[in-house]
Every structure is written in C-alpha cells, then in structure tokens.
C-alpha cells in the first residue's frame, strides 16, 4: 500500500462526513489523478465481501462504512439499530420531498391527499429532511439532507430514477381495456 493510499485511508477513517476528491487532493498535497488512482486502489482493498469495511461514494464525497455482514454483531455491541425502516406514510413524504424539493407541507398534503404533519415531523427528527427556506407566503419549505443521501447510498438526488418510469405502461392500459371488455361480457351474461 503506497503512502498516498495509506494517508487516504487514515483521512477517511477520521473524517466525520464524506470528503470530496478535491478536498482530499488538497489535504494530501497530491494531484487529482493521483487521488483518483489511490481511491481506485482503496476501492479494491475494501471491495464488498473482502473486509469489515467498504469504501463508498455518497453525498458528494468518499467515506468508509461497515460491511453489512457485520450488522448482527454491530447491533449487539452498539445496542442501537441502524435506521429503522420507514412507514409507508414517511416513505411517501420523503419521496415527494426528494423529487420536488424545495417543497412546502401544504403541497405534500395536496399530493398525498392526507395530512403529512406527523410523517414530516418524524423525518425532520430523524434528520432525513430539513428546512430549506420559506415560500413567498412564509411557509417552510423542505428539502433532503446529506444524511438522507448517506443512508440511502446516493451520491446526489440526481441519482434517483426518473419518476415517470413508474407511470402505467401502455401494456397496463391495454390490460385494463381487456378487463373492461370481460366485465362488460359478464354483465350481459348475468343481467341484474
């Protein structure tokens, strides 16, 4: 392991938050391509399944995380769960904030059709969303946090898939049409 790779390992071990390649280059007094090469080597060392740690690129920077295989032991030692799963209401609220940010609470409510107060409160408390300014009427606007990106393994919100990917497909439409015809026939067969 070269000195630069060792230094990078030490920095990523110490840094409380993901560190961008530019900052790493400055701290190591190295050129960007040297850093890229060293990060690639470190990525090999900490490739999934090899070690107790993994090298990850999240929230716009590089960081080390524990390997998922050690989770059972980590839970026993640290006695606190990683991140509890989201309830459907929380996941929906988070999805709306992630895609439409900055977005106000009334807008979230309009899209969900039900109040999002409790869900957004929990998301704020868990640090997954934060206030990001105010609308022209003074309503608080919400956006996602770097912690959200970290916990969801995303480098940026641009990595989220295009939501139109989940719109009903032409096949689904055709399927519905077919069910319509069948239902129509059934009605003719059994007049009420």
């Amino acid at each position, binding site marked *: 392991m070269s000195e630069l790779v060792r230094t990078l390992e030490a920095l990523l071990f110490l840094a409380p938050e993901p560190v961008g390649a530019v900052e790493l280059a400055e701290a190591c007094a190295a050129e960007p391509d040297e850093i890229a090469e060293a990060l690639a080597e470190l990525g090999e060392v900490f490739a999934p399944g090899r070690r107790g740690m993994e090298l990850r690129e999240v929230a716009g920077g590089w960081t*080390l*995380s524990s390997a*998922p295989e050690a989770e059972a032991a980590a839970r026993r030692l640290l006695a606190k769960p990683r991140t509890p799963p989201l309830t459907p209401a929380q996941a929906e609220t988070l*999805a709306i904030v992630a895609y439409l940010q900055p977005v106000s609470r009334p807008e979230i409510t309009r*899209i969900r059709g039900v109040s999002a107060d409790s869900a957004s409160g929990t998301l704020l408390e868990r640090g997954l969303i934060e206030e990001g300014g105010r609308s022209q009427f*003074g309503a608080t606007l919400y956006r996602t946090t770097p912690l959200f990106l970290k916990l969801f393994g995303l480098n940026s919100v641009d990595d989220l898939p295009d939501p139109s990917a989940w*719109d009903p497909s032409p096949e689904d439409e055709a399927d519905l049409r077919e069910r319509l015809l069948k239902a129509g026939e*059934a009605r003719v067969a*059994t007049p009420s």
Partner: protein
Amino acid sequence: MTVAGLELDLEVFSGPFDLLLTLVLREEVDLMEVELADVVLAYLDFLEQRGELDLEAATEFLVLIAALLELKSRLLLPRDEEDVLDFEPGEAADELLARMLEAKRYRAAAEHLSGRLAGEHGRRFRSARLPGFLRKVDLSESAAVYDPAQLGAAIGALLRVPPPISLAHLTIPRVTVAERLRHLRALLRSGITTFDEAVKGADRVTVCVTLFALLELYKQGEAVWEQEVPFGDITIAPNTPSGHHARMSA
C-alpha cells in the same frame, strides 16, 4: 387485498373497484348512474369480513371515494351559474386522473426509496469524536468566509408580517339548516311537495343547504323522497306508515 381489488356488484357495474374508476374516468360508465353509497356499503362489508382496519388501504379508499363524490356533486348541481362553475365534467375527470397518477407516481417512488434503504441495511458509518490533535482550532488561521449581509437579510425576512388571509372569495353562509328545515316542514304540512318547489328562486348555497335539511328530515323519519329519473324532479312526501320508500341516489 387492497382497495383496488374490492369486488363490486352494482346495478350498472360489476367488477373490481379500480376497473370502475377507470371506466368512470374514461366516461364509459356514467357516474350519474353509479350509486356511490353502495360502493361505500360494499367497502364496509369488506372491512367487516376482514375484521381489521388497514389504515393505509382505508385512507386510499377515502381519497378515491371523496374524489368520486366531488366529481358527482359537480355533475348533480344545477348549472345555471356557468361562470362560477370552474370545471366541466371532462375537466374534472382529467384533474382527478392527473391527481391519481401523481399520487401513484410518488407511492411508487416511495417503494423505490424503501427498497434502497433496505439495500443499505447494515452499512453503518463511524461517529466518533475527532482525536485531540484535530480538535484545537487556531483562531488566527481562520479567515472570514461568511458575509454578514446574510444575517441582516435573515433578520429582515423574520420581520416580515404575513398579509392577513383574505376571506373575500368565500361565500358567507346566509342561510342555515334550521331555517330550511322550517321551510320544508311548512311545505310538507300541506302534503306532497317537490324539491324544485322547495328551492324555487333560491341561490346555489340555499339549494345545498336545503338538500342537507332534506337529508335531516329523512333521517328523523319525517319525510320520504323519490326521484323517478336522473335529473327528474324529487318528490317529497310527509312520512306516514304506509308512505313511499325513500330512495336516494347520491
């Protein structure tokens, strides 16, 4: 089973709820002919059989049935004030469809996010205090990086008092249910009457409130009502033991 698969057996339609919704939105089933009360009853039956309340599914059902009720009420109301009516039925259906698609899109996005989070399960990050040699910050080494104007601007924004909310666009109710109850009871004392008679010359709000009053009379068992054909006049009769059976088509 989710709300979408709720099996319905109505006069004009039999099949799953989501299909009914699709047909209504495509205007292939006339919403005017759908007895939404029966849809609600079918859902209540389903809940009873199931023996437990799935809050998410119940919420979904409420949203959908409320949207259908809104649409139907727009179709049912008299159309004499075209300028005030903001939606054509087709437009309303489009809006409903767009709203459902939007909600569906973010429900799918939510599932994607939950899946992502589950995929990251077990990857924890270190959170330890920095070692001592990194905690001492030399003040003389620190440069000015923030602009004080940011603080002034933040204070200015906090001094802004929001404009009072204008209620001018809301209709102030000038007519009460109690008043319309008195009116209906007076009409019924001289026998059978009609809804048209009861709301002759009245504005839209009064028509609505009169309908509420009529529902109240029906609930109290004081009156029964009948509508022969959709859009036809509603006949209202004082309730006698041998009276008509009430039939509501809302």
